[in-house]
């Protein structure tokens, strides 16, 4: 890998975004690369938007992805993908989106509306490859609905230069013992999803 790869992982507080970005950074580190990731703790965890920036490469300086340089957005929730679209590079970027809508209270209170047909909005405005992953369904198939974040990492792994072995190793070492099998199944289902 010659240049730095920029990934943004977004979603809603409580979805396991920080765990996912931690696993991704560890896989890069295990593969001998430099890695930095950045996110903010505190107020944003209370059901608000959460975003984690991950940068991987031979030498990384900034822990933040620069606007216009993001190679890949992995979003755990549909509307949260929209929020970071302007960070993508102009051409050749990719957006992987969990097929899940979490409706915020602002919509129930009619202070705002939930955006419709997000996939088309993105395709219309950005020259990027958009992939929708039914992560909740696949996670249930894997045996534990809480492994949706691992499904999404599996989908992401297809576009990163790391071996399946290194992913499996890091996942096995990082998640709770009793959930290792379900997480490995979830990872595989996510990784194979695109191919079917």
């Amino acid at each position: 890998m010659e240049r730095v790869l920029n990934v943004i992982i977004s979603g809603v507080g409580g979805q396991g975004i920080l765990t996912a970005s931690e696993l991704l950074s560890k896989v890069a580190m295990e593969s001998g690369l430099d890695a930095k990731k950045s996110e903010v703790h505190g107020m944003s965890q209370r059901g608000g938007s959460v975003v984690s920036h991950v940068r991987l490469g031979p030498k990384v300086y900034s822990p933040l992805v620069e606007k216009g340089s993001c190679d890949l957005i992995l979003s755990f929730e549909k509307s949260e993908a929209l929020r970071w679209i302007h960070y993508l590079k102009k051409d050749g970027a990719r957006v992987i989106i969990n097929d899940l809508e979490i409706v915020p209270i602002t919509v129930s209170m009619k202070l705002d509306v939930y955006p419709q047909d997000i996939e088309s909005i993105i395709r219309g405005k950005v020259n990027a490859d958009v992939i929708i992953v039914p992560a909740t369904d696949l996670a249930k198939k894997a045996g534990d609905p809480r492994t949706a974040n691992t499904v999404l990492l599996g989908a992401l792994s297809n576009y990163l230069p790391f071996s399946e072995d290194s992913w499996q190793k890091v996942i096995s070492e990082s998640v709770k013992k009793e959930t290792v099998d379900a997480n490995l199944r979830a990872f595989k289902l996510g990784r194979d999803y695109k191919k079917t």
Partner: protein
Amino acid sequence: MPVRDLMSGNEAVARGAWEAGVKVATAYPGTPSTEILENIAKYKEIYAEWSTNEKVAFEVAMGAAIAGARSITSMKHVGLNVAADPLFTSSYTGINAGFVVVTCDDPGMHSSQNEQDNRRYAKFAKLPLIEPSDSQEAKDFLKEAFSISEMFDTPVLFRMTTRLSHSKSVVELGDREEAEIKEYVKNFKKYVILPANARVRHYVVEERLKKLQEFSCSTKLNRIEKGSHALGIVTSGISYQYAREVFPDATYLKLGMSYPFPVDLFKKFSEMVDRIIVIEENEPFIEEEIKILGFSVEGKKYIPLCDELSPEVVRKGVLGEELPHPEPIKSVMRPPVFCAGCPHTGIFYNLWRLKATVTGDIGCYTLGALPPYESIDTTICMGAGITNAFGFELARGKEFSKKVFGVIGDSTFLHTGIPGLIDVVYNKGVTKIIILDNRITAMTGHQDHPGTGKTAKGEPTRAIKIEEIVRACGIQKVYEVDPHDLRGTREVLKEVMELDEPAVIISKRPCALLPEERKIQSLRPKRKVNADICRGEKCLGCVKLGCPAISIKDGKAFISELLCVGCDLCIQVCPFGAIS
């Protein structure tokens, strides 16, 4: 090969403290500093405590340093305001064993009430200032800070920022070097800061600053990174990393010890480059130091004073351009909300219904200021929930004050709430206070406090009873309510409003995210809406609770099975009995 680990800046500071042989560590939780003490507490070689507040934390650690043990105290930027009194005097007394004060500033105010740049404290208190720029430096520089502290007999201010504290990067680990307890010698002229002694010590401080300035030119913490002569960049902390992304070819003066300013090193650097730009977050701290020397440099002309920096802010500021990127697309507003089953929900729902004036404090409950409650009028700092309420009473009279409530959390009450409550009683106020006792310091991620019965190390200890303190402050009307009993709570609020004396309501229910609470929740049935009875959008009664599990779907109320914790608040508020 050395062991490498992916560590946050805060984890790296904790590791650095362990490697430096630290014996005593103190802190009060505050984002973004909290994880420093949390991680230090895991090392069995280090005594670690959650102190009652930052002033207490500072003085306990300072006392330990004077008595001979390497000590560290950590806090968020506004916490150092609370500890500012001992900070200034510690500069005069000096220390014995190494003493490092970690301040975690919050540029961008991700979780803070202001954007103060605590580098100013170093100059104000005449202390050396260390600024790491990633996790590896956070660990290595912390060890160096202890050497400097002992070498110059001074506390050292160690400045982190949110992006350092909460970013993770690769760190090469080292071993612990045991620092023996230093001999303690009674020294009246040094440690008893009577005016006669302080006058002498001030000269010592000024002499020390001169020596520190020489040292800052030779320390490895400050370095010149040679690049093109066309552009020279002076920078420190996280700003260095952003500058490196935007200007890979420039020559750098990278400051790890930015105060006292390394004058001679800067002069050498200035001869190597044609143009100098200072890239720093928030205040023009370094820029001013250079301009005082009579050099012409640019800095805040390009780099904004407000908000945090990022590579794009640096690029736009200096070069006036951005990388090409897609136009932003509007997404939905998703403000943080109270968690499902949060005890605060019950209080703020009632305060909203009563249309009360509420002076707030610092904690999760600040969210009571946002929709749907919008019931908090002021949020200033720790402790001000009580004292601001008394101020309202003084300005607007006792009749208006009937509908004024000061709210404050349990940890916050113990932190700085007590003197305010005594003030109300002593000065014959009738102020009404609600202590939101959720049995934990919640917003910073569940730290124990003197009321929980557990120490930072997880050991059992004597739990301080808030009710006993309230009574000891002179309050005679003390009530206890369960905030999830909406009607019962409202009745107490109404009763208290009519009292012609000060009163405290202790709202008692554990944070819904505590493990024991989660166990209870998992045994309860999830709540369901009967769509035939629900009036949905015409009513919105349950939506006004602000529970994240409740939304409107196809015109009717809908409760998410994933988020519902089985409390019965929605059942209590539904006027049509549609929820079971």
